[in-house]
Structure formats: structure tokens, C-alpha cells
């Protein structure tokens, strides 16, 4: 067997191994398609979930509150400025 053929065969083996291993990995990480209700006593937490849930909700509320406040300030500023400029337009020139 020539060196080139050995090299090609090596590539084919590596490729086949990659395919098999990635298939096995995909099967091992089977996705969850539906949510099922827990029975009492089913849940044994290794990492406490409360901080994650708390931070997630706190962030969502803070982001929305900040955006509403920022929008309200921008609207108020534009309306105030618009009233001033309209006033200048309506006042008779000196």
C-alpha cells in the first residue's frame, strides 16, 4: 500500500469515527419535547434554583421598567421642546 493510499484510508476512518461519535453524542443529549408535572418529593435540587429564577424575573422587570422610564423621559423632552419651538414660530417677529 502506498503512503498516499494509507493517508486517504486514515482520513476515511477518522471521518467515519467522527460521524459515529457525533451520532452517539446527539443520542446521549436527547432533547426534551414535553413538560411533565412533578410528583410530590420528585425534585431533589443539587444547585439551588431560587437565585436563577429570582435574577431572571428581576432582570426582566428591571429591563422593562428602565425602558418605559427612558421612553417617558424622551417623550416628555420632545413634547416640551416642540411646544417651545411652536411658540417661537407663532410669536410675531421683532
Amino acid at each position, binding site marked *: 500500500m502506498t503512503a498516499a493510499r494509507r493517508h486517504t484510508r486514515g482520513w476515511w476512518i477518522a471521518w467515519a469515527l467522527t460521524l459515529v461519535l457525533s451520532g452517539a453524542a*446527539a443520542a446521549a*443529549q436527547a*432533547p*426534551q*419535547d*414535553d*413538560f*411533565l*408535572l*412533578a*410528583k410530590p418529593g*420528585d*425534585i431533589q*435540587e443539587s*444547585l439551588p*434554583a*431560587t437565585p*436563577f*429564577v429570582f*435574577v*431572571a*424575573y428581576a*432582570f*426582566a422587570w428591571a*429591563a*422593562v421598567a428602565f*425602558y*418605559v422610564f427612558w*421612553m417617558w423621559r*424622551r*417623550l416628555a423632552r*420632545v*413634547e416640551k*421642546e*416642540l411646544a417651545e*419651538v*411652536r411658540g*417661537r*414660530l407663532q410669536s410675531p417677529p421683532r
Partner: protein
Amino acid sequence: MRVATRLVPVLLVVAVVMLARAPFLIDAAPYESTMGLVQKIFYFHVPSALVAMTSAIVCGIASTVFLIRRRRLADHVALAAAELVVVFGLIVLVTGPLWARKAWGAWWVWQDARLTITLVMWMLFAGYLLLRRFGGAGSEVLAAAVAIFGTALVPFVYWSVNIWRTQHPTTDVVATLPPEMRWPLRWSMLAIFALSGALLILRTQLERGRAELEDAYAAVEE
């Protein structure tokens, strides 16, 4: 636009009342069997994602109308919707990893198509806003083209979980929810959609006000 303006208080009242009730419904919802408490992030994560995708579609349609007909209102709606994509997209991109850390053991999985495409879409719309802010005169046309590319990603974001199977639950998860979980989700969804509707109208009004202000300044200078 007048009808939309009248709709704002109604939408805001609906949103505030529903959002005030939402935490109680979410608290009362049962735990999921494998994820437990952390699955409750779902009740804000999914509605925020849907709002971000809907806003992206609105932005794309408005940008197309603007590119074809050059209507100012379409440009204002596009800008307002792009801002909503960035705000609600950020909520999705922060709450998702918090859920993933507990459920999957990792903050972020780059191989997960849903996560990566969502991040790319969010970055495109963030780029849209940066372009509008710093692009100078005429940037609205270029930004509209960017928005159309961003909107083209929405179907990929939505169906990615069904096409490329990874750890993220598929789109079927909502349809197959037990009634005890479906009701709080629908409640949160309605609340967040009402809020986003009001915000979209208000942001469009803000942009219209800015355009009027520019016109008024031009008239003063003349």
C-alpha cells in the same frame, strides 16, 4: 395613528393589571418533573421571545414599505419595532442562560442553533439601532436593508429547534403543555403582548414628535 393613540391607555391598563396578577399565577403553577422550580423562567422567557420575533417581523415589513414607498410613518414604526427587538431580545438572552445553567449545566451552548441564531438576530437589530443613532443623514435606507436581513432570520430562529435537534425544547412544547402550565403562560403572553403593543405605539409617536421637531427647527431657521 389617532386610533392607535387611543389604544395606548387601554393596552397599558390591560398590561399592568395582567402583569400584576402574573406572578401569583406563575407561583401557583406546578413544578416540571425534571427541571423543578427553574422551569418557571419559561413564563417570561417564551413570551419575551415571541414579542422579539413579532417585533422583528413588524420591523421588516415596515422597512420594506419604507424602501418601496418612502413613507415616514413606516420608518418610524420600523425604528420603534427594532428597539423592542433589542429590549425583549435582551430579556430572552439573559433569562435563557440562567435557565440553561440550572437545567443543562451550562450558561451557553454554542452548538445549539436556537441560541446562536437568536444572538445573531439580536446583534443585527442592535446594529440597526447603532446605524440609526450614529449613521448620519440617509442612514435610514441602509438600516432598512439591515432590518430586512434581520427579519429573514426569524423563521430560522423559530424552526431551528425542530430542524437541528439540540438540547433546546422544540416548538411542540407549548402545544403539549399540561393545562396547569398553559394557563399562566397564555396569561403572561397576553400581558407582554399588550405591553409591547403600547410601547410600539408610544415609541412611534416619539419618533414622529422628533421628526416634527426637526421640521419646526427648519421652519424657525427659514
